[in-house]
């Protein structure tokens, strides 16, 4: 026996659809060689979905496909999808696609007795064999129910058809109209049970969103959520809410914010490359200025920047930023800075996301700025905005693109959560708020969070001047935090104090000097006095000595005189 037998999971062979995002949700595509049911209401995009499946199969995977339509004539269909850039005519000529329009007109058909749908089988078989098709689309087979009355035969034949398709080994896509309370109007899901995808088109608050859900997928894992999808000039793109894994690469490279003071607050180096930065603040706190400065710094590093403006036009931003000494026009001219301005209400959020996606894939910027995301709320509901942003951040991080959002706080109290609730998603969150004191408002900037780096806990004063942005230490004195002119006044008074002290110090020195001098002269006079006294004293001594000497002399003379007298006598 082998020591350990590796458990080999037999995964279901899959056929990639080539539809952006769908293969991600279904983990590889649709079940190979089996029929898949696409259901949805009118205008949900079923036909396009099916056509794209075949066209992409032909264009990207070299798998020829057969399109059998029951609704539209081949020419009409060709025309409809031509707007998406699919040249069905050419592909038919190249033998990659074969179209067959099965027309069922009840008015010209009479049923009598037993029949079967062999005719359809034969046509299908003929079409498949003619080009060696691997993919088959039946759009919308339910039309048979409208054309034929004998439902018993029809159901039996459909069951046979799907079995036959499986046997034939083609990956089939069958579209069906959504029924009332059921997935399909005629219960086709009974027959096609391998994979069922539901398309939905909802209008909420006048903005429509298309959604897709994999209802079932036998024998395979799949994303179970409702995923928004879009139809634009490039066809369908499904946007997975989040990619199923959280395994984005990370970079430890740091990039400057363009504001020296800010970099200093962020561990001295600025943001991480590929991180997401949220700048929130009340109206007029300079969020756009921070974003523009960041963009300017990046352009100076010769990095490409994509700026999505949802509030101002590019010209307006360029003009306004000129007032703080930023010349954005030169970056635009150099092709480094790209603006994309659109009104948030122009289209639904999904469309915004796709536009952003597209622009990013097209321009491949290193830095993306969204200014502001708050305005997107007007285009959608809060949870939607959040889901959009999650996906956007996810997408950007997987591409190592640094993103900066600006967000408007509607109230002056800084919430722990921003209105969009993206704070938990972003890596660095900078908040600017007004500090209102002494009849003026000053901007206080602080870093709420910054993952993976030491960041300052200080409130710094954010100063916008003609030369750009700067951060100044706020004055934190015994009277509390002082900003703006109060801070300046405090600084001035401190400077004055210092000057005064210096002056007073000099005066005291002089005084002491004088005192010393006086003292010294006093000492000198005392010395002199002492000397005089000493002199006098010594004089006295001398006089005394002299007197003594004279007295001695005198006594001696006297005594001599006395002795001489006696002798005479």
């Amino acid at each position, binding site marked *: 026996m082998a020591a350990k037998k590796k458990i080999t999971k037999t995964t279901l062979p899959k056929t990639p659809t080539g539809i952006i995002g769908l293969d991600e949700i279904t983990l590889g595509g649709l079940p190979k060689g089996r029929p898949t049911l696409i259901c949805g209401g009118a205008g949900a995009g079923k036909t396009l979905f099916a056509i794209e499946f075949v066209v992409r199969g032909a264009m990207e995977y070299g798998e020829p496909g057969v399109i059998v339509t029951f609704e539209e004539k081949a020419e009409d269909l060709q025309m409809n999808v031509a707007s998406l850039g699919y040249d069905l005519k050419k592909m038919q000529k190249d033998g990659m696609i074969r179209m*067959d*329009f*099965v*027309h*069922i007109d009840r008015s*010209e*058909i*009479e*049923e*009598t*007795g*037993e*029949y*079967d*749908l*062999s*005719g*359809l089988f*034969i*046509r299908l*078989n*003929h079409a498949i064999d003619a080009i060696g098709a691997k993919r088959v689309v039946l759009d919308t087979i339910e039309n*048979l129910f409208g054309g*034929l009355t004998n439902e018993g035969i029809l159901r039996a034949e459909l069951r046979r058809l799907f079995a036959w398709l499986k046997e034939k080994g083609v990956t089939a896509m069958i579209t069906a109209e959504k029924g009332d309370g059921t997935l399909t109007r005629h219960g086709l899901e009974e027959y096609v049970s391998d994979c069922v995808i539901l398309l939905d088109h909802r209008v909420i608050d006048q903005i429509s969103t298309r959604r897709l859900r994999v209802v079932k997928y036998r024998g395979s894992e799949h994303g179970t959520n409702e995923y928004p999808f879009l139809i634009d000039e490039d066809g369908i793109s499904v946007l997975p809410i989040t990619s199923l894994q959280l395994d984005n690469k990370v970079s430890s490279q740091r990039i400057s914010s363009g504001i020296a003071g800010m970099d200093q607050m962020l561990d001295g180096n600025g943001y991480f490359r590929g991180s997401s930065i949220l700048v929130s603040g009340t109206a007029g706190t300079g969020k756009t200025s921070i974003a523009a400065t960041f963009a300017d710094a990046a352009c100076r590093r010769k990095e490409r920047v994509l700026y999505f403006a949802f509030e101002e036009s590019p010209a307006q931003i360029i003009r306004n930023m000129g007032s703080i000494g930023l010349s954005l026009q030169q970056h635009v001219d150099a092709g480094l800075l790209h603006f994309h301005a659109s009104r948030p209400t122009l289209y639904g959020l999904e469309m915004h996301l796709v536009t952003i996606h597209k622009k990013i894939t097209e321009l491949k910027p290193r830095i993306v700025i969204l200014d502001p995301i708050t305005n997107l709320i007007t285009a959608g509901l809060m949870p939607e905005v959040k889901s959009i942003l999650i996906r956007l951040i996810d997408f950007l991080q997987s591409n190592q693109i640094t993103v900066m959002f600006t967000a408007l706080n509607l109230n002056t109290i800084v919430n722990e959560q921003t209105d969009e609730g993206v704070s938990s998603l972003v890596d660095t969150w900078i908040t600017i708020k007004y500090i209102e004191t002494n009849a003026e408002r000053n901007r206080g900037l602080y870093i709420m969070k910054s993952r993976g780096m030491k960041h300052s806990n200080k409130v710094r004063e954010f100063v916008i001047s003609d030369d750009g942005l700067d951060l100044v230490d706020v004055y934190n004195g015994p009277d509390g935090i002082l900003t703006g002119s109060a801070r300046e006044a405090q600084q001035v008074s401190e400077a004055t104090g210092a000057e005064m002290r210096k002056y007073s110090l000099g005066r005291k020195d002089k005084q002491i000097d004088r005192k010393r001098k006086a003292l010294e002269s006093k000492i000198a006079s005392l010395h002199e006095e002492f000397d005089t006294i000493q002199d006098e004293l010594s004089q006295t001594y001398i006089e005394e000595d002299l007197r003594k000497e004279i007295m001695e002399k005198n006594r001696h003379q006297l005594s001599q005189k006395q002795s001489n007298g006696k002798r005479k006598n």
Partner: protein
Amino acid sequence: MVKEKIKQAKIKEEKWELRLYIAGNTPKSMTALANLKKYCEQHLPDKYTLEIIDLLVQPQLAAGDQIFAIPTLVRKVPVPIRKIIGDLSNEEKVLVGLNIRPVKK
């Protein structure tokens, strides 16, 4: 394989061009053919042409007449085109479908 043309020599003003699509010699197809021949002989003597197309042999012909069910009888002429699907077991329905005035017996 069964591709035969039955032409009646006599040319009349009103001529019926019929086509029967079958797929092999299945019982349903055979029943349909037998029924059709019977009705035609009875109601359209010498006024019809019948073409039988076996789609197993000529599958490419199925699309032209929009055939999806087997057997299908197509009345090409007189216009408008009419189709009758099934084994044609109901004589009345077939006649109504082909817009043939039955010959009184």
